[in-house]
């Protein structure tokens, strides 16, 4: 007869082996080698830019590391860049797709059609219609790796690009592409874009700031299927008992921009050339390209005073005379409020030094007292 110890040992050994195998499984799967493919960076970039019409569906997760010092009206935008956002996506084309932001107890679905978007908020039982505008506030669909990768690479020069190997993302072999912004003003150290070599879809984007090892933004697909989604899935008809609204947020921002008195912006600030963007109000000066962007706008004095106080309360704020500046990861924000001239607000993915330099180059408009 076997002793107790001898009878117990093999049984526990079986349990131990089972646990060890199960525990090692994720690590083994992750360690499976991925074959790299020596595709040149420029060719890979071209594939990404041509991928807007690739139809797919999937599940993506974006994690933002930015704590934006913004006001209550823009809470939703701030959350996008500071939180973890889970998204389901069905993409039939740039004008026909649906992105659901998944929360544990509900969801917010954004259905795009040719004329605009329906936004369905389950917990408020509200459907909001917004007309398509060339310029809109950042929304979850902008954080999809596929969309973001195209946007970031579209303005990147080939010289800024380098290949960085391959890895497996969402079960697909992805080739890496690293964009290192050439502008000294840029607060973005590098942008890593991982591209599904079969379809050209970007499957992961990691934005690293100049100062931090924690990505300012990391968005990736967890599941990706290259099948054509059903048209019925992306379409939306508001349910009978939903409250219907028309979106105003974008309009409010644009309206405020339109009311700004146009200022003769210089063609270059802090080494960044002026640029245009379709739909942007002329009162706002836009500079830079790719991952390095800077927006300058004159702000009404009343608004500037409130904003200045809010910013100054932040422990990281640098207050120098009448200007206040603050950085949240690679995003810098600066308020210049000289006593005898109109205030300016500068913000973008540039360093604080670049903000100071840019502020000094702005035209001085005498205060109208």
């Amino acid at each position: 007869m076997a002793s107790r110890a001898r009878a117990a040992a093999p049984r526990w050994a079986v349990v131990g082996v089972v646990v060890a195998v199960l525990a090692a499984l994720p690590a083994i799967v992750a360690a499976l080698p991925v074959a790299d493919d020596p595709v040149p960076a420029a060719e890979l970039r071209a594939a990404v830019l041509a991928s807007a019409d690739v139809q797919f569906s999937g599940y993506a997760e974006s994690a933002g590391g930015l704590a934006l010092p913004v006001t209550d009206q823009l809470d939703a935008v701030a959350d996008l860049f500071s939180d973890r956002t889970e998204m389901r996506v069905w993409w039939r084309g740039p004008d026909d797709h649906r992105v659901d932001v998944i929360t544990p107890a509900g969801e917010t679905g954004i259905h795009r059609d040719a004329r605009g978007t329906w936004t369905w908020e389950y917990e408020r039982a509200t459907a909001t219609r917004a007309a398509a505008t060339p310029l809109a506030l950042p929304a979850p669909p902008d954080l999809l790796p596929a969309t973001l990768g195209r946007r970031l690479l579209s303005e990147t020069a080939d010289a800024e690009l380098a290949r960085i190997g391959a890895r497996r993302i969402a079960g697909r072999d992805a080739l890496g592409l690293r964009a290192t912004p050439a502008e000294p003003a840029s607060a973005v150290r590098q942008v890593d874009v991982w591209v599904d070599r079969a379809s050209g879809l970007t499957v992961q984007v990691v934005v690293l700031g100049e100062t931090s090892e924690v990505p300012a933004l990391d968005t990736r697909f967890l599941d990706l299927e290259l099948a054509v989604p059903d048209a019925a899935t992306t379409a939306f008809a508001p349910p009978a008992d939903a409250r219907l609204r028309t979106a105003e947020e974008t309009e409010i921002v644009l309206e405020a921009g339109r009311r700004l008195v146009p200022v003769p912006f210089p063609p270059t600030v802090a080494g960044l050339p002026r640029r245009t963007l379709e739909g942007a109000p002329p009162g706002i000066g836009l500079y830079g390209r790719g991952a390095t962007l800077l927006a300058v706008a004159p702000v009404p004095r009343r608004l500037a005073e409130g904003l200045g106080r809010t910013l100054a309360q932040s422990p990281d704020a640098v207050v120098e005379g009448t200007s206040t500046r603050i950085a949240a990861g690679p995003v810098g924000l600066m308020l210049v409020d000289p006593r005898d001239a109109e205030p300016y607000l500068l913000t973008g993915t540039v360093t604080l030094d670049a903000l100071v330099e840019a502020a000094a180059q702005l035209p001085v408009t005498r205060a109208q007292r």
Partner: protein
Amino acid sequence: MSTVIATRGLAKQYGRVHAVDGIDLDVRAGDVYGFLGANGSGKTTTVRMLLGLVLPTRGEIDLLGERMPRAGRRVLPRVGALIESPAAYGHLSGRENLALLDAAGPGGGRRDRRRRITEVLDQVGLGGVGRRPVKAYSLGMRQRLGLAGALLRRPELLVLDEPTNGLDPQGISEIRELLLDLHRGGTTVFLSSHLLAEVEQLCSRVGVLDRGRLVLQDDLAALTAPTGATVVRTPEPGQVRAVLDGRVAAVDGERVVVRGGDPAEVNALLVRAGVPVTGLAADRPTLEEVVLAAAATSADRVERER
């Protein structure tokens, strides 16, 4: 006569404590085996090893000719057991408890279950207890119910650990009769107890356990066989010594032990000498004397190590 329980070098060690230390039990078919031992001597551990509840550290067990605990599934349905105290689900009636226990293992036919339960309940004297839940039972009733559970499948072997616990004198005598009755019907009984009197009255074979070791195992008749001396009761022990000079082994008040195994011969000598004799018997050791001689001290004594 076949062997019902046979162990070889059976031992159980808990850490550094040797609860059972290499015992060789030998229980034969038809025995009423008294397994004697003080509290803590290892009786319960041995019983649990026999039933496969505790796994031995060393040694072998054959139960009804098969190796335990490997053959437990085949052997145990033929064994009825009462292990330490009885136990039952308090919210159910005795009848339901028996039905559940019977259904929980092999060897209990479903068709005649109701009949068998009625029978054993009558047998242990609980026939009229009805639907009362077990939590309303007295200690004695629970003991009877436990016994009923052990008898449910007419086992070939009954392993009983202190079966008369909590019973009143009438109850004890009833159970004794029941066990003797079963024994006459061919059931082998393995009775573990610390009550010498109970074992002496019931058993045909005795094993004595002392601190994990089997110090004695024999037929009761052999253990208490005449010693070859005669016990004389007399109000005049001095006269006895005078008459049977040299043959008197011990004098204890009116009790005189005389060498010589034939009481008639001793009596003739004494009567001839005019010594009054009030009692006369062949000398037999009591079980108590045998056990005390074999087992050194009580096992619950914990002596300082020297």
